[in-house]
Structures are given as C-alpha cells and as structure tokens.
C-alpha cells in the first residue's frame, strides 16, 4: 500500500513535469496579453505532426526532430498571434479567445490533412529498460522531463529577471499602459513572449510525444486542457503558481487513477478545479 502510494507519487511528479512545461507557456501568454490562447495546444500538435512528417520522410534523428518541433510550433504560434491577438490587443478578450478557437480548428485540420491516420509512431526518447531504484520503477523519460522542466524554469527566470527583454516583459505584465508610455513596444514584447511560450510548448510537445512514442489528433485538445487546468489550479498568471498547479494536477491524477480508475481521474481533476473556483480563497479568482 505504502509502496504503491510512493510509486504513484513518483509517476504523478513525472506527469506533473510535462504539465508544468505546458502551463508555463500558457501562463506567459496570459500574463502578458491577459488573453487565453486556446490554440496553444493545437500549435504544439502541429509542431509534433511536422516532426513526425520529417521523421517519416527522412528518418531524422531525435535532435533534428526536436528542432523541427520547436520551430514549427513557434511558426504556428506566430500565425496565431498575428491573426488572433495582435488585432484584439485593445479590444475584446472574448473575440480574441473565440478567434483562437477558430484557428484551433484550422491548425488541427491542417495537421490531419498532412497525416490522416489516427495514430503515428514517434521515435522513443530512450529504448532501454526503466531504472530500478530501491524497488521503485523510474522511467528515464520521466527524469528527462523533470530535468527539462527545471531547466526551462531556470532559463525563464534568467530571461525575465536578468535581461532587457525580461524587464520589458515584466513591465508589460504589470501595466501595459505604463510600459507603452515609457517607450516599450508592447506589440513587439507580446510577439517575443508568444514566440518564447511557443518554443517552450514545442519542447513540451516533443518530449511528450517521444515519451509516449506516438502522436494522435487528440494531442491538441489534451495540451490545451492540461495546460489550462494546471494554470488555473495555480491561481492564474503566476509562473511559480503554474508549476505548483501542474505538480498538484499530476499527483492528483496519478493517485485517483490508481484508486478510482481513468474516468474518475479526469472527473476528480475537474472537480478540484470547480471546487477551488467556487469556494476557494478570493485571491485565487480576482487576478
């Protein structure tokens, strides 16, 4: 019993690490634009499909696939930013969100037209057997995912707190108006942050696809839902909060899957969000 609990906790942390990468990208975009980008997951899906295409035609190695995945996601992200967020920067948040949903449909259909089968194999990150540590099973993929999440967080912190771009981005997050008045180009900062968030998303997509060794059309909705859930659980708009929310989501899912099965696992995750929003502390819902 205790052993299972520990093993589930390990698995949950591994899943949480992948959610953290997704949630951090989501939070960056929300923090700077105050807009929800529903196309975030589909852009990641397009990146992974582009990488799969390159893999199928040229048999390229993992490093090349990772680069293709990140680049394609950034391109898709830039397309979304130009069409859904740049025009609505001063306008309606609802219009921007619905526009990003419209592009979700578009990106998803484009990916499916390129690779119409329901499932494609993706090269695995690691072919050997999982590690055995004191009786627990630890997948190498999980360690890579955790390492990547930590690395991304450190790099992100450095970018936000130690570079000129970071100063500009944080001032836009605090007050777009004040930033604009002090000569910062809000449009360019938004573009930059979008590219950064998309790159993180692309990396997350690559690592997720390479550890489950497949891509399916569900990846887009899955990434958007998990990223949104983790971001909301963490109290919306704070980067450390997003990481905490992602780990909580991973742990809750792993334990409820073990005790209650996969359907109730998802139910519990949504229930947690609903209860937190409905009766949670006020600071969580007033940002």
């Amino acid at each position, binding site marked *: 019993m205790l052993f299972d609990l520990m093993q589930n906790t390990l698995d949950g942390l591994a899943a949480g690490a992948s959610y953290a990468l997704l949630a951090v990208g989501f939070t960056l975009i929300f923090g700077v634009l105050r807009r*929800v980008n529903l196309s975030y997951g589909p852009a990641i899906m397009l990146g992974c499909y582009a990488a799969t295409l390159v893999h199928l035609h040229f048999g390229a190695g993992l490093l090349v696939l990772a680069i293709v995945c990140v680049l394609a996601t950034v391109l898709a992200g830039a397309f979304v930013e130009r069409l859904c967020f740049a025009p609505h920067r001063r*306008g309606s948040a609802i219009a921007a969100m619905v526009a990003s949903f419209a592009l979700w449909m578009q990106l998803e259909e484009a990916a499916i037209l390129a690779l119409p089968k329901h499932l494609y194999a993706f090269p695995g990150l690691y072919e050997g057997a999982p590690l055995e540590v004191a009786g627990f099973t630890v997948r190498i993929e999980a360690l890579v995912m955790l390492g990547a999440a930590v690395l991304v967080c450190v790099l992100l912190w450095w970018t936000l707190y130690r570079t000129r771009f970071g100063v500009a981005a944080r001032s836009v997050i605090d007050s777009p108006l004040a930033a604009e008045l002090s000569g910062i180009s809000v449009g360019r900062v938004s573009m930059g942050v979008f590219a950064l968030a998309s790159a993180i998303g692309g990396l997350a997509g690559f690592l997720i696809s390479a550890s489950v060794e497949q891509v399916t059309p569900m990846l887009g909705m899955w990434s958007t839902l998990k990223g949104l859930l983790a971001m909301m659980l963490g109290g919306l708009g704070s980067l450390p909060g997003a990481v905490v929310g992602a780990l909580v989501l991973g742990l809750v899912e792993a334990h409820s899957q073990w005790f209650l099965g996969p359907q109730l696992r*998802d*139910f519990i995750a*949504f229930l947690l969000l609903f209860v937190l929003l409905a009766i949670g502390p006020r600071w969580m819902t007033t940002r």
Partner: protein
Amino acid sequence: MDDYAVGVLTNIGLFGFLAISAYLLLLAGEMSFGQQAFFGVGAYSGGMLTAMFGWPLPLAAIAAMGLGALAALMVALPTLRLRGLYFAMATLAAAEMARIGFELLHWQVEIEGEKIGPEGTQGFRSIRWVFENGVEPGAYLAIIWLMLAAVVAAILALERARLGATLRGVGEDPELAAALGVDVTRFKLGVAAVAGALAAFGGVLYAHHNTYVEPRNFDIMLGVHSLAYALIGGLGTVFGPLLGVIVDLGLLEGSRFFQGYRMIVFGGLVALLLVFRPRGLLDERMVRWLKQRFS
C-alpha cells in the same frame, strides 16, 4: 426537398437552440464554456424518458427542460460571483464533469426483449420515439423550426420590453445596473436557468433526431462552437447566433464544396471576421442601421 437538405436544415435548427442559449448568457455578460452539458442533460434525460419509460416526447421535453434549468442553476449558483475567465473555466469544469458522468452512466431496462438505456462510453441507442410514432423527417423538421421560431419570437418580444434593456444593461455595466435597483445576481441566475432550459430542449430534439447519442457528442468542442456561433453571427439580435449556425452548418458543411477543408475555411473566416467585427456580423450598430433602413 431531398433528404440531405432536410438533414442540414434539421441540424441548423437543433444547434440554433444551443447557440441562442450561449447568446443569452453573453448578453448578460457571462461567457459559458459549458452550455453543451445542458444540451447533453436534455438529450440523455429526454431520451431516457421516452425510450426507457415510454413517456410521450412533448412531456419528456418539458421534464428535460426543467432538468436543464435545474442543472444550470446548480452550476451558476456557486460560480456567478466569478468574473470572466474564471466563470468560463468553472463552467467548462462542470461540463466536463457532466460528460464523464454520462460515461459512467450505465442504466438499462429490458423492453420487448431488448436492453435499452445509456451504456457508458458505448452511448445510448434506440431513442426511437419519433420513428415509432410515424413522424416523417420533414414533419420533424417543421416541428423543430416552429419551436425555434417560438423561441425567437419570445426573445424578440423580450428585447423590446424593459427586460431586454435590463439584460443588456446587466451585461454591459453590472455596477450601474445594481445602482439602478436591479438584483444582478438573481437576474443572472434567471438568465442561466432559461439558457440551460433552452439548451436542454435542443438536446432532447437532437437525441430524437439522431436516435443515438454518446458522451463524446457533448465535449468542449460543442460548447466552444456554440459560443463561436453567437459571436460570429452577432450579439446585436437573436438572429445573430442563428446566422452563425447557418454560416457553419449550412454554407460550409452543407455545400459539400469545401469537403476536407471545411475547418480551414471556417477557422480562417471566423478569425478574420472578428478582426473587423469583434461583436459579430449582426452587431448592435448593424442592427440599428438595419432598423432605421427598414422601418
């Protein structure tokens, strides 16, 4: 009319109810990602009442509307204090819980040697009231559109009355509306209940048109579509959401011309449209212009 045209028109009518449901909440200033849940509640409860318990469809539809309103109140009561995105996410969470609830629902009764009822992820088959009672597809289409016309007429009358002004006022400036003596929370609860009942009504008719529903029918895709319908069609009049449905289901799906590229065309069109008309084609200004022009 050939069968295909009847099918397309029926679908436009069915999803029209859902689009109007999302539209009413948008007018009250709330963006719900969860109207598909009430559509699903209507589909499941209405289907169960006719197929499993032998109720006539009209009675089942009334009961399902009541259930839809009740479910909507249960979601709205704890979440209406939330603003904007938080409300949207809370409704999304509730709707996904409902969808998983449908997946977990296993309840079948034996009727004439056949097991009938929801079978979890396998879906819910044999909702055959319409077929068994000899209602032709054309007649069913007429019933759907008559009902929809009644709803549209009711909302048009409401918009002319004081209630319509209150609705838009609550949506645009809740503080001002409260200062003018409107009990904003109670008003929004009422709107949520009506919107839930409308979605459930659409759901009942949908289940009896398809004779088969499954939990996947009521996922977030449907919810965001209904929001998009209201928003692209326009928030200026109740014809807006209907126009949104017609553009998607009629023009794109119905014409068969964009086969395989429908979402690429639709998605690009919507995103571009929202750049120029962030409150939809039939927004308030357009409606005022049309009224001056034709009155």
